[in-house]
């Protein structure tokens, strides 16, 4: 490699790391602030003493454990629902050329643009008629039928060779057995990809849960954090940072551990 090339490469490398620095600095700062008193954090007193008070304080001011549980319940209500319902629907589209399937699929795709995020007003009205306001199931219900999931699974199912299905049929598998024993296992990568994308989406969702939850028993982390942080109540940086970290920690830790899978999943879901 020539001298010029070497310089060019190292300049690029430095650039890459500076960019990375900018990208994690905000989070690192929040992390740092969470372990220092507010005034130390504000004065960037690098050598000021570490403290866990902020976490203790935030923990005592709002029930973050309960919020985490709510988020967990929400996600574990939505995801299996999405997977189940979308699996059935995708199977119907791929294997049963039922009358009106094309129109039905077009109606499914409508949801890709008209997402529940936008229909907050009427969906709220619907759910209050159903008496599901301020329930975890109400919070999750509009998301259970996911056009995106149906779409992804339909693509995955389509790519499964018909021979496999024929072979299973010869072995005596019925319609549902073929679905469970052939289609679902073969589409596992798609299931994983969608699951990670879905979980991170709903873990981070805010507006709809804010609208639909009233009480501590249903408030997910984002809403709890949003109310905790309501700037009207005066901002205590360090406590806020601690609360923020506690809220993002579960997903963030999961991401850091399974980084590759997350990135792969987002990639796969993005390519479609």
């Amino acid at each position, binding site marked *: 490699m020539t001298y010029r090339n070497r310089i060019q490469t190292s300049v690029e490398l430095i650039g890459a790391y500076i960019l990375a620095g900018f990208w994690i600095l905000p989070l690192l700062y929040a992390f740092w602030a969470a372990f220092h008193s507010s005034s130390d954090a504000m004065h960037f007193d690098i050598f000021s003493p570490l403290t866990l008070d902020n976490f203790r304080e935030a923990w005592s001011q709002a029930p973050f454990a309960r919020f985490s549980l709510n988020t967990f319940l929400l996600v574990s209500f939505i995801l299996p629902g999405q997977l189940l319902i979308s699996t059935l629907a995708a199977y119907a589209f791929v294997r049963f*050329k039922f009358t009106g399937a094309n129109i039905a699929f077009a109606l499914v795709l409508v949801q890709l643009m008209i997402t529940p995020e936008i229909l907050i007003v009427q969906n709220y009205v619907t759910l209050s008629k159903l008496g599901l306001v301020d329930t975890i199931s109400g919070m999750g219900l*509009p998301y259970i039928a996911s056009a995106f999931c149906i779409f992804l699974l339909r693509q995955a199912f389509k790519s499964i060779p018909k021979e496999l299905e024929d072979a299973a049929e010869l072995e005596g598998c019925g319609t549902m057995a073929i679905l469970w024993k052939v289609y679902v296992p073969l589409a596992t990568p798609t299931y994983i990809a969608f699951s990670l994308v879905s979980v991170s989406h709903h873990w981070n969702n805010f507006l709809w849960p804010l609208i639909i939850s009233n009480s501590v028993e249903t408030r997910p982390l984002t809403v709890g*954090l949003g109310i905790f942080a309501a700037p009207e109540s005066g901002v205590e940086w360090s406590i806020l940072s601690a609360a923020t970290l506690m809220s993002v920690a579960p997903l963030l830790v999961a991401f850091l551990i399974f980084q590759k899978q997350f990135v792969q999943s987002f990639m796969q879901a993005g390519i479609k």
Partner: protein
Amino acid sequence: MKDSVRNIQGWLLFTPAAILLLAFTHYPTVTTFFQSLYTNKSIIRPRRFSGVEAYESMFSDPIFWKVFVNNMWLALGTIPTSIGIAILMALIVNKAIPGRGFLRMAYFTPTMLPMIAVANIWLFFYAPDIGLIDKVLEIFGFEGNNWLGNPSTVLPSIIVMTVWKEAGLFMVFYLAGLQTISPELEEASKLEGSSRWNYFWRIQFPLLLPTTLFVLINAFLNSFKLVDHLFVLTKGGPDNASNLILYYIYETAFSFLDISYASALTIFLLALLALTALAQFFFLDRRTHYR
């Protein structure tokens, strides 16, 4: 198996999804439309048919125009920049360089944070005088700025924050795109004496066009859906300088309890998104399929 049996089975399998989709996508869309044609009900005033009155007042509502224009600026400010940065990031982590895993993690992490947490963190950066940015400026002898309190800087501030959050996600899409490009293409062009720059513009960028289109449209749709940060940062202020359509819908419906007007706003937003999605449909369908 008989056709009619398959027909019934197919419909049965599709029914659960169909019911939920109808209940939470199609039905509310239709009722929103009807709602916008009627006035609100209260003790004092009964509900009555008002036709397009809500739309008339929408188009003469300066706040509506302001939030619409804000949304457009937000899209315009966020999307090209984050696409540019995302491509750069993807090019970086697509190469075998030292610490690639770390770099990819660093670029992607903000994507995993909820917007509300992002806003909490950035609130501190933007706080006038005591915030991080002003403190840093102070060191270099610059005077602080009231980033979120000044209508000319509030939207750019939010744009910067959004770029920070979104670029990593787009990076992943570009990374996927880059990985479909055979490395031999780069070797071939290198051999022809093509510079990296030339290779990017003549080969990579055109080959990433489908990805760009996908990202473009999704980012555009997203810019209308993401308003969480307003709850923490500005509440749409000052004087609606950072207000966005969806937040305005939220305010109108839940704070002003004006369902009729909120419905009209929603229908407008839906129409806008539907048009965009249709554009996507046409573009993506006509795009050249390489290999």
